[in-house]
């Protein structure tokens, strides 16, 4: 089956549908958003271990706290600056680091403390509030509510799961690559006929078909432009790279914000294996975004990967770590002033830890996100401090962007 706008039109015309009612007749065009940069937010669900991902091997306490994890350059991590070393799972990103397109912020967290529940931790990270239950929408959506000229395609939540951070009153698009409609041409035509008189259904169907068509085009690029008839039979790429390719596809067009999640960071047991594969997925995702966006768009893109909380500084009895507090965020993109690990390092001496067990957060992760949105989209500081992140003090500009 080869879906094109033309073939859809032809089939609709044969059936005698009202052409005027179809948004496919006039190519859908979106007014460009008032800003031209791109923001990608990746939620790392499960609580990424900051001390293993960006290893503070220069801290004299680290080696004693971790017998098998976070071994620094001696254990194969790449030295970044004489104090921090990069986990081998992130090694594919080293060229970006050298190009100044990759950075980290250490020892950040949301205001969430003590309970260490994934469920609540993610809710508060995505709601962007100081406490649980403070908002029923997400901070990225509240950003969109402040901006003029926003349309559904301005921001994309990608993947099957709900992305609370994009929930809210501002229109956003939600799609999962592979969620498309593989119908016979006849079924597709009849579904169109059935829904034609119901605008809600009709518009959603057309949009779904349009997005499906795009998935298929995307698929052909992945296969090196092979025979379109084979596309549906082609094996699906791994979900995270599909999502990254799809995000890049949107961001090359009128989309300005994309958000999705990468799961698998809850490394209570044998973290050496679990974290390596999760960081590998994160690396592949960033590289796929980079290649998908191309030099031009990548140059004005910032990727921020954030997690609901960090993990215990001490390794536990099964080669893993448990739920903690302070964590790290990853920044990537041509718009980033990278090649640096930012954040005030609190130290790992027992007295410097949070509750004597966790990395002490020295900044609110929302401050960095707010500065990113200020710099990228021109969001006003007052809006960021009162509406997007209610009650936040943005403090000094950390200079995350070029």
């Amino acid at each position, binding site marked *: 089956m080869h879906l094109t706008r033309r073939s859809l039109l032809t089939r609709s015309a044969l059936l005698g549908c009202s052409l005027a009612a179809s948004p496919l007749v006039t190519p859908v065009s979106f007014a460009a958003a008032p800003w031209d940069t791109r923001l990608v937010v990746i939620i790392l669900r499960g609580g990424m271990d900051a001390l293993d991902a960006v290893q503070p091997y220069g801290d004299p306490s680290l080696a004693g706290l971790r017998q098998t994890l976070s071994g620094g350059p001696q254990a194969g991590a790449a030295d970044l600056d004489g104090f921090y070393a990069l986990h081998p799972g992130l090694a594919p990103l080293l060229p970006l680091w050298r190009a100044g397109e990759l950075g980290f912020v250490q020892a950040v967290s949301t205001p969430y403390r003590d309970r260490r529940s994934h469920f609540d931790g993610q809710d508060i990270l995505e709601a962007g509030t100081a406490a649980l*239950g403070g908002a029923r929408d997400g901070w990225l959506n509240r950003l969109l509510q402040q901006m003029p000229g926003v349309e559904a395609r301005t921001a994309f939540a990608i993947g099957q799961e*709900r992305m609370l951070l994009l929930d809210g009153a501002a229109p956003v698009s939600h799609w*999962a690559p592979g969620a498309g409609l593989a119908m016979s041409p006849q079924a597709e035509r009849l579904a169109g006929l059935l829904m*034609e008189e119901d605008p809600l*259904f009709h518009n*959603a169907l057309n949009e779904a078909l349009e997005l499906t068509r795009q998935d298929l085009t995307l698929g052909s690029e992945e296969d090196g432009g092979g025979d379109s008839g084979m596309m549906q039979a082609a094996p699906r790429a791994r979900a995270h790279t599909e999502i990254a390719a799809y995000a890049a596809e949107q961001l090359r067009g009128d989309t300005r914000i994309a958000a999705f999640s990468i799961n698998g960071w809850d490394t209570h047991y044998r973290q050496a294996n679990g974290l390596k594969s999760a960081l590998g997925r994160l690396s592949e995702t960033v590289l796929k975004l980079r290649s998908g966006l191309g030099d031009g768009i990548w140059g004005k893109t910032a990727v921020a990967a954030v997690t609901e909380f960090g993990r215990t500084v001490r390794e536990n009895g099964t080669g893993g770590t448990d739920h903690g507090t302070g964590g790290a965020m990853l920044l990537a993109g041509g718009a980033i002033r990278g090649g640096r690990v930012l954040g005030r390092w609190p130290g790992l001496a027992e007295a410097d830890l949070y509750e004597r067990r966790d990395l002490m957060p020295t900044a609110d992760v929302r401050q960095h996100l707010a500065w990113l949105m200020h710099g990228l989209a021109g969001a006003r500081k007052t809006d960021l401090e009162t509406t997007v992140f209610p009650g936040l003090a943005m403090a000094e500009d950390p200079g995350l962007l070029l």
Partner: protein
Amino acid sequence: MQFDGDLAEIRFGAGLSPLVRPPVSAEAMLGRLQGADEMARRFPVSGFDEAFARAKEFQRLRRNRKRQEGQHGYEAADKAFKAYRRTHNAARFKWHGQRLLRHVFTRDAFRERLVLFWADHFTAQGKNGALRILAAPYAETVIRPHVGGRFEDMLIAAATSPLMLHYLDQNRSAGPGSRAAKRRKRLSGLNENLAREVLELHTLGVDGPYGQADVRQLAELFTGLSASQDKGFVFRPGMAEPGAETVLGQTYGGGKPELGQVLAALRDLARHPATAQHIAWKLAVHFTSDQPDPGLVTHLAARYQDSGGDLMQVYAALLEHSAAWQPVLGNVKPPFDYVASACRALAVPESRFSALKPGQLNRLLLAPLTPMGQRWEFSGGPDGWPEEDLSWITPQALAARLRWALAAPRRLAQPLPDPRVFATAALGRFANERVRFAARAAETQSEAVGLILTSPAFQRR
């Protein structure tokens, strides 16, 4: 009002079925609702206590595994825990099947709809792997017995249920001046979560006549509501804030802390005119339209208030109002209702459900709800699922409905019905010319059935 049996079954019931005659009158619907709960008996779901015991065993095995970390017994402990977790999931899938079967076979479908409505109004969910299975038993024991009773009794049952106390963090709320807080420094004090949601979501509504001081006072009054691993709900006077609290100008307690003061406040909140308005609005939205007829809302609110929140009388007011019988189909069915009504139209036999392995039942009937936008028993917040049609019919969610409708029926009903007959069975007189044309013009039988289920006429009610 013009009673219409097909419309009654579609709008207020579980959809049309070739096996079940639609109700003949509003009185008959209300009569069934007051009669025995046949479906709960025929397709049982575990009660709360039994499920809570399961959750405890789950926690015990998980703790045991944790204790064995790095030791000899770890592998065995891990195996035992994982095996138990499988039975945990299997139970959850099984209950899901039972709840769907009730929709397939019931002659009392208004009851099933009301159970869904009120379980959503009083959303409570487990926040960890052990407690997640409690959502169905909660609906079974906390909500279901009260759907034909008084609102205040359901409110009290929900607000004192161990699942709600866990979900909204009431368990850890201690009065700042309580004995418990003085004894244990780690007890961080008051948690306003349950108090706020009771006012905002369960009773007065977000625009209701209360302020932050009322939330705070109600939170202080609620201290002591707790649950124990063994006994379920308990009132712990040691955690309760001493002294009187004033909520909406009414003062409660003052002497020894006791449960009675809390229940009195809940009853007063349940009878408040703002609650009548809020509940009337929610029922009208749920059963008729995102923008309900204001006359219907006023009518429902008045009956609620006159009857002191007697829900049977409120339902009677709903079914007697002409706005409830507008012949144009309105609301979009949420995903659970959509799948359930499709199973009902297909008359999926009970034996088909019981032949499904837990994993198959999950893949065929439960997991597909997630891409449709309703990850079952995991609503995003205590406000439950959305009502707006727009939030259900997104491109992604509609695509998921289409995929399910085109693939699942042939795995559920063998042989598939003749599409032309099926159109009438599923839609009655709402099978319009487009539906009949699609039923004839589809290339295969399963496409025809899928397309009928995909028609807006089937997806709306």
